[in-house]
């Protein structure tokens, strides 16, 4: 149990610190790697909480699919510039005030009325998740799959847009030569 606490809080700390470094990091690629590290740490936290299926899904879906897409776009984007944090920007202040208000509200919600006892984590394996997923929530699964299909169609539409843009540009470039 001692070891459990140590590893769990360590992974939580890694996740928080890596996420926080997004505030200061200059290159988008470094940010993406920090975010990936945070997600791996969170996957470990999920595993330790007794949710092995979600931990692995975090690795496969977030790290293996979403962040790879991210990294791919960062690499393909023509702007390879660095983004230093600009604190002297005046338009920052409304955002910061909103953020502080939000933090206060969340803190009040969290520490206000929640009465909980520490309990030991119980492993809920992938079979239980699957039964619930294709039993009680099967309509939601269909909705999510429709959403994925919609996203697919949207991406294909925009990608064709991108392609047309390139094709239209091609004769101009030839003329320029």
């Amino acid at each position, binding site marked *: 149990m001692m070891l459990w606490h140590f590893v769990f809080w360590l992974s939580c700390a890694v996740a928080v610190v890596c996420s926080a470094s997004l505030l200061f990091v200059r*290159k988008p690629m470094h940010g993406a*790697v920090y975010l990936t590290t945070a997600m791996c740490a969170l996957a470990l936290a999920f595993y330790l909480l007794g949710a092995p299926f979600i931990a692995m899904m975090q690795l*496969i879906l977030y790290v293996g699919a979403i962040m*790879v897409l991210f990294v791919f776009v960062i*690499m393909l984007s023509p702007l390879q510039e660095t983004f230093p944090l600009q604190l002297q920007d005046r338009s920052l202040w409304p955002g910061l005030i909103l953020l502080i208000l939000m933090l206060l509200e969340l803190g009040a919600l969290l520490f206000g009325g929640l009465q909980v006892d520490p309990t030991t984590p119980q492993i809920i*394996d992938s079979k239980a998740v699957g039964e619930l997923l294709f039993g009680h929530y099967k309509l939601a699964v269909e909705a999510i799959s429709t959403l994925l299909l919609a996203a697919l169609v949207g991406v294909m539409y925009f990608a064709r847009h991108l392609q047309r843009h390139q094709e239209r540009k091609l004769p101009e470039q030839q003329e320029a030569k």
Partner: protein
Amino acid sequence: MSPWLFWPLITIAMVVVILGLILAAGFTVFGERRILGLLQNRYGPNQAGPFGLLQAIADAVKLLTKEYFLPGFVDQKLYKLAPVLVVVTVLLSFVVVPIGKGISFAADFNVGLLFILGLSSLHVYGIFLGGWSSSTKYTVLGSIRTIAQLISYELAMGVALLGVVLLSGSFSLEDIVLKQDIAYIFLQPFGFIVFFIAGIAETNRLPFDLPEAENELAAGFNTEYGGMPFAMFFLGEYLGIIFISCLTTTLYLGGWHGPWAESYPLVGVFWFALKTLALLFFFIWMRASVPRVRWDQLMSFGWKYLLPLGLVNIIATALISALWM
């Protein structure tokens, strides 16, 4: 067992296993060079030691004693991180593979198969970051190819694995092996084909070695690496081949099943090693036989043939197992 004995024992076992795996990768390199020579009317390295067996160690000593050189234009943090990531993810994957009856680190890990898929998606990062951080055009082209190839083939691989999961009803590799009275290659021939082709693409081997296509991209993603980091990339690649062979053995060829393997676990280890070695030989044989495919052929093969074949395989497996079982 008391924790004071457990942790030192586990540490020693891990060190032994890691050293053994690194040696195995070295000897895979040696075996590849010898067998490629054999298949190409050459001799291959046969000078160092009997039959050239010490060549692997000579190579390792040469690579490890080379100068560590950091090019000036690289992104230093990621450049140093990438080879470590490649090796560590592959070494971690071996944890869940059962090599004999009850002989493994964590074969009954209840999401073992998903763990392997997750680690292979982390493996992509190692290869990709190595190429990106070197920031020359060949390495960047290599890493773009890596991402596109590995994403599309990982999907096909996962889809093929679902057939095995449907038949065995478990994500744990131990259970999958125990359930295989008939090797799943006979029950899942199409799944096996899809999985194995996707595995070849995952390990960047010929005919799908586009990320490091030597005659187009210098050495692809590891062009700027030398000495120790290069050795680590190399180690990662060959460990990957060994791992895919082990995984195919476990999932489709019956793992350690064989005559007398039930009563004597060490005989099971022997059968497992034999099957794995046969698959390793096939990998090398394939490198000698098949030419590299073109880039668009690779993508269209992955998305238009492999993935639909895997999906049809899942549906057929589900229907048959629902009707019969």
